[in-house]
């Protein structure tokens, strides 16, 4: 009771620093690494990126003997190596969404905006910290996936491709870049929608529902429109070949970065105008 019955002195702060973009980034890094949900999403992303190509390579190897020449021609070593990217993008997207919607659902956003009332530094910091973490986190798995799947296939002497082969290194690293951009896109969606379920549904709609729906269109329309969808434009980052129905690497990359920039810009516009 003695601690209670006398007035407590609040220790004074020797110096008080101003809010800077770098300090907000450090704060966001602390937030990102201190959540179990984030760590699980990361773990799932890494695991899927490695395990699916390994599984795919093992299955291809064991069934190679019974495959028709047509089927064999359809298999490409890079498609196998990057098979995990198509699935782990969902884990990365969920992570990107949670970085922002987790703050809205728990009320943390009020604390964040009280500390940084200008708000935009929070969005920039979240985007930058998340982008760096997502890229550094996903780069090793895509490399491991490539070499592991190649190692499995090499035991049957099939579907060999060298990392130094033209475009291979670019495509493999492009897989990590693609995942990073998917995460940024999802973060922007999360900041716009401000609700976890709604943001994930929106993301899934854009990346997983709309593309197959395009098949309902007459095929010449489908070919004209589909290549401009975010998922198709982004896919060029990790595709070795580009045909008439897809954009070139440069055009696809630029368009996908544009989509990401657009969602972040809309998020920024809304962030400073809406009540919290």
């Amino acid at each position, binding site marked *: 009771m003695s601690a209670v019955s006398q007035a407590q002195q*609040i220790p004074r702060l020797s110096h008080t620093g101003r809010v800077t973009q770098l300090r907000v980034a450090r704060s966001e890094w602390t937030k990102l690494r201190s959540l179990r949900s984030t760590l699980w999403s990361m773990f799932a992303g890494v695991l899927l990126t490695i395990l699916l190509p390994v599984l795919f390579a093992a299955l291809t190897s064991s069934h190679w003997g019974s495959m028709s020449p047509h089927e064999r021609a359809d298999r490409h070593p890079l498609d196998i190596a990057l098979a995990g990217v198509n699935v782990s993008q969902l884990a990365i997207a969920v992570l990107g969404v949670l970085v922002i919607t987790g703050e809205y659902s728990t009320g943390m956003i009020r604390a964040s905006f009280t500390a940084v009332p200008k708000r935009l530094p929070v969005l920039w910091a979240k985007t930058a910290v998340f982008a760096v973490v997502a890229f550094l986190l996903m780069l090793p798995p895509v490399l491991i996936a490539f070499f592991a799947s190649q190692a499995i296939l090499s035991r049957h002497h099939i579907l060999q491709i060298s990392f130094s082969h033209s475009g291979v290194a670019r495509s493999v690293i492009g897989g990590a870049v693609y995942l990073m951009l998917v995460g940024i896109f999802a973060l922007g969606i999360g900041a716009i929608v401000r609700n976890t379920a709604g943001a994930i549904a929106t993301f899934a709609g854009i990346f997983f529902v709309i593309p197959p729906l395009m098949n309902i269109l007459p095929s010449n329309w489908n070919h004209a429109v589909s290549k401009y969808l975010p998922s198709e434009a982004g896919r060029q980052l990790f595709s070795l070949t580009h045909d008439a129905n897809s954009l070139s690497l440069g055009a696809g990359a630029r368009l996908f970065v544009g989509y990401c920039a657009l969602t972040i810009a809309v998020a920024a516009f809304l962030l400073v105008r809406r009540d919290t």
Partner: protein
Amino acid sequence: MAEGLTKYYGEQRAVDDLSFTVQPGLVTGFLGPNGSGKSTTMRLILELDAPTAGDVTLNGKHYRDHTAPLHEVGALLEARSVHTGRSAYNHLLALAHTHGIGRRRVDELIDLVGLHDVARKRAGKFSLGMGQRLGIAAALLGDPSTIMLDEPVNGLDPEGILWVRHLLRGLAAEGRTVFVSSHLMSEMSLTADHLIVIGRGRKIADMSTEEFIRQASGGLVLVRTPQAAELRKALLSGPDVTVTAAGPGLFEVRGLTAVQIGEAAAANQLVLHELTPQQASLEEAFMTLTRDDVEFKAADLESEEAVL
């Protein structure tokens, strides 16, 4: 501080043309029934919500324009503002980083609010009282010149309530501005020097706690005398004075202070057996002041029914 502050949520008017100034060195209580706009006002001060009209500044600047906002205002909001999945320590650390505040300060505050043993546990598992302590730690993190707390004693045990009371008084004694809302009138009467009372988003009173209670008491003085008729005559000479018999030889006098009554009795050489100024409790004072407001609500309902 606040000038003509107004906030509508759609058609709903939460704060209506509210103007007030909060002084440093005092504990200012912010009173009002539930839904009267206290929390909204605090959100407007922090610019979490934008006002529909009016303006609010802190030390001459908008909150947003301060370079070190946490050094300016430390706030505890009524709604929880903590990520449930993060530990108390990491929550404070993340906030501290934005202002370049170090780990030592975070540790100091965790000790100060008594969360040392649970600092590494997820905040989502905290009780209401522990959550309030964490919120208070966050509010004090930046060594702020203004402390703004929304219902700080909510969920605290008696020891915690006492702790908050001492804390607030101590902060005010250090010259800080302390602005604290509560629906516990008795708590405010022990803690607050000054009161701002609102009802339905409008200001009802803005005065010292003493004045508030005195005014609501209506200056009622209880007088007991064996010379009832003579005293009655002597007192009724003044304007706006009412004397009501409350028993044999007992009066309730309004419109005069105890001093005035005593002097009037002495001047007329009358004997007094009792002379007691009646103090309304803060609750009573509050009820008296917000009564019109409540009636207004009831009238509103009736007119709506009439339209239907």
